[in-house]
């Protein structure tokens, strides 16, 4: 469908799983979003890319109910977002994991909070670990683990309660390069295995294209969607695709749009 070097902007989608409409948000009178709309397709990996401070974090925080917005609606799976089950991975694993709990207890926590019986908690987490072939020693405290292992624990914690959607805010930015590759591969494996609707904020365009089925390119404030770009190369993707013609073309197209946007 997609020609090797052509990149297709998408029309409005009907199979949107997350539907944002008429969203307003300002901080101290300064508008970040005005009448903002966004569709996130079901079962796809969507990455969000945009200039510094354009409101990427703010957007996924609003969609996941972490911060309020001034006006508009957010629907997840056809219902109000407040009733959706959400997995959220923070940029800073050190500040978001609970260091007084062991890694395993961290992963069990979302199940505990929902009052799921102890036996079932154990069984479900075991299942989760087996499914993703996790071989970490989860009896340790999180601060005894490497950054990559901690972020992996954070991802497992976000997955433990079977979320309908997984949000990740720059989950690799606190990791070194090697750890980034490791966690990125695990994340891709998780996505391939579950087909979970995934939304990831990235400040690295190459990473945003590499991981994505859809790249949402945001503008400067007041923020709107410049373009949603499709990139549907088969998975699992490996480092080889970085030299692939379609990858390069998609990245170049996004970069051109981004540059044009920055000149405005």
């Amino acid at each position: 469908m997609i020609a090797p070097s052509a990149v297709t902007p998408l029309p409005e989608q009907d199979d949107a799983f997350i539907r944002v409409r008429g969203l307003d948000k300002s901080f101290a009178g300064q508008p970040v979003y005005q009448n903002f709309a966004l569709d996130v397709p079901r079962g796809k990996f969507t990455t969000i890319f945009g200039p510094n401070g354009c409101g990427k974090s703010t957007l996924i925080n609003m969609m996941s109910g972490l911060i309020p917005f001034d006006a508009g609606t957010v629907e997840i799976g056809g219902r109000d977002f407040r009733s959706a089950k959400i997995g959220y991975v923070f940029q800073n694993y050190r500040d978001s994991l609970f260091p007084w709990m062991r890694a395993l207890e961290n992963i069990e926590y979302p199940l505990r909070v929902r009052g799921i019986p102890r036996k079932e908690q154990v069984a479900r987490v075991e299942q989760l670990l087996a499914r993703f072939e996790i071989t970490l020693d989860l009896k340790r405290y999180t601060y005894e683990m490497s950054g990559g292992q901690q972020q992996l624990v954070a991802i497992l914690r976000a997955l433990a309660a079977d979320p309908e959607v997984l949000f990740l805010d720059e989950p690799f930015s606190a990791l070194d390069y090697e750890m980034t590759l490791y966690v990125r591969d695990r994340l891709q494996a998780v996505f391939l295995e579950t087909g979970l609707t995934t939304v990831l904020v990235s400040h690295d365009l190459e990473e945003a294209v590499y991981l994505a089925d859809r790249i949402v390119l945001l503008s400067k404030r007041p923020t709107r969607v410049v373009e949603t770009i499709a990139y549907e190369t088969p998975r699992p993707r490996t480092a080889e695709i970085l030299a692939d013609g379609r990858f390069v073309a998609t990245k170049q197209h996004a970069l051109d749009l981004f540059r044009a946007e920055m000149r405005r």
Partner: protein
Amino acid sequence: MSVVGVGRSIARMPGAIAPRLHWSVLLPLAGPLAFLALWWAVSASHVVRAVLLPSPFETLGYLGTAFVHGTLGADTLVTLTRTLLSFGIGALLGVPLGVAFGSNERLYRSVEFLIDFFRSTPASALIPLFILFFGITDINKIAIAGFSVFLIVMFNSAYGVMNARKARILAARVMGASRFQVFRDVLIFESLPQTFVGLRNGISTALVIVVVAEMFIGSDQGLGHRIIEGEQILHVTDMYASILVAGLLGYALNVLFMIADKRLIHWNGK
């Protein structure tokens, strides 16, 4: 890295490593030994009259005897009991109230001035007031020390809760935790390191105030009483021994709390 290198090259020369090891092990003793030496030098040189400053050996010897055969042990126990009681009361009231205030910032702001004011008021200035209310009793000493502990602990617990890492609270909330669950599973734990700072300050303060109270609020037992009596009847050896014991007691309590802190709040600073 270079330290490791030096250690290795020395290890290859037998005999050279032994004095090195000794040095580093004995280092913490250097200060106390120097202090005792200075004390001894001053008392032996008679710069200060012997009735005012006995030699350290005489004092330490007396300390041992007074503990075993005399009433120094009993007085220490009385002071320790008073300190622990006032600490316990202050902490039992201070921690829950502090956590409650801390989790409701508006509530805290409304009492902040009061807490800061009384925290800044020297407890000794309140002694007469407490005498008026409680008379010259044991309860008085415990009440005034407990009051000070309460303020310190409450203040620290409240700040511990207020400074809880925002991301952890959000993480719990996005996982579906209720307000109560956030409080029980996150806020309490987030406040613990700061609460422990309060408890450590609290126990030191309790000892200080109990000893002062024993000096000036008619008392016939306790280290404070012993120190002031030693001064008044010029039994200075007893006075110095009692001061040493009070110091050791304070130090021991501090170390105890430091160990408890390390073990209970194992994640602190990591």
